[in-house]
């Protein structure tokens, strides 16, 4: 018998079977972006490209809104998502800033604070409350 479900980890969305089943169409689209021609096709006609991959309404809305947390909630995996983010010119700090709701500068400062020995909890509190 599989162990009972674990305690959720705050701010963390495990890419498990449930997410994988939900996110398949969006992940398939993002996986296609390994190919430069597909990235160009997406940029040329985002609507048509998303339609071709049969994104769910939730997935399409999240992509249209460049809503990273929305994509994650819709089952996107960060490794595939990163390829879409690349098309938008977003790096992992940009993506971090979008997900935490902090400015890019504040997010980077939160990383740097950990580099100076602050715990994540402290650095995160400072980012959130100034």
């Amino acid at each position: 018998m599989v162990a009972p479900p674990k305690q959720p980890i705050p701010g963390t969305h495990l890419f498990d079977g449930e997410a994988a089943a939900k996110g398949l169409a969006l992940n398939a689209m993002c996986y296609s972006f390994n190919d430069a021609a597909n990235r160009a096709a997406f940029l040329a006609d985002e609507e048509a490209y998303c339609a071709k991959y049969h994104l769910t309404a939730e997935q399409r809305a999240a992509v249209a809104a460049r809503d990273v947390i929305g994509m994650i909630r819709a089952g996107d995996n960060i490794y595939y998502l990163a390829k879409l983010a690349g098309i938008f010119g977003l790096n992992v700090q940009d993506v971090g800033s979008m997900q935490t709701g902090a400015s890019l500068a504040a997010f980077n400062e939160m990383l740097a604070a950990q580099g100076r020995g602050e715990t994540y909890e402290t650095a995160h509190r400072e980012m959130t409350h100034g």
Partner: protein
Amino acid sequence: MAEIVGAYFTSHVPAIGGAIHKGIQQEPYWKPFFDGFPKVHEWLAEVKPTVAVVFNNDHGLNFFLDKMPTFAVGAAHEYQNADEGWGLPLYKPFKGDPGLSWHIIEQLVDDEFDITTCQTMLVDHALSIPFELAWPGVDEWPVKLVPLHINTVQHPLPSAKRALAFGRSVHRALASWGADERIVVIGTGGLSHQLDGERAGFMNSDYDRFCMDHLASDPDALTKHDVHEIVRLAGTQGVEILNWIAARGALGAGAREIHRNYHLPISNTAAATMLLDPA
């Protein structure tokens, strides 16, 4: 008979490749990380490996959700790097060692590991960046490659205990390999980082130090956390420590730490580099 000359571990953050490409290794942001490498270069010049057995994880280049293996073993004559979606310059091809690959595969299946075998396989930054860090600017990689892949993408992931056992099975294969080769074991990725979710930017140097402190002397200590606990302690992508754990198993029973560098942040990651000698 082959000889296992030691193990090399390093983070593989894509931005490292960018820094190398731009030649900004000595800028203040990057220097503390790259300062870990002169010692690696010295050590490699001394132990002179001819084959690299590399534990790493695909990031959505070679594997998709249609066929997502827990453990995969490359058995190709050559491995290509490829565009991961960011249009970055590609790394040189990697010469394979199919004889050793199949020897490892036979051992693993004999030891009841249910691997996926890959006669063609693309390798991504998880492999190319550790190679470029180890052998910067060479015309041709000085080692042949056997790449081993561990699923760190889709849960359920293999447990740390299983990853260590996987590495130990690979060790048995290396220890019985008849060719006159000098084998370096490589583990890539980590340490703590989380890219996704509201907890993005999470790092945890306490857990990282626990891992580094026990890697040589007591790797079984790293298997006391289940994968869920590792995610909690190391972040969603910090589970790449599984590559380190498996590589540690492949090195053999005894090991001695001879080098360590740890610096954060590199991009969103607590970056680490280590060298272990067999002991």
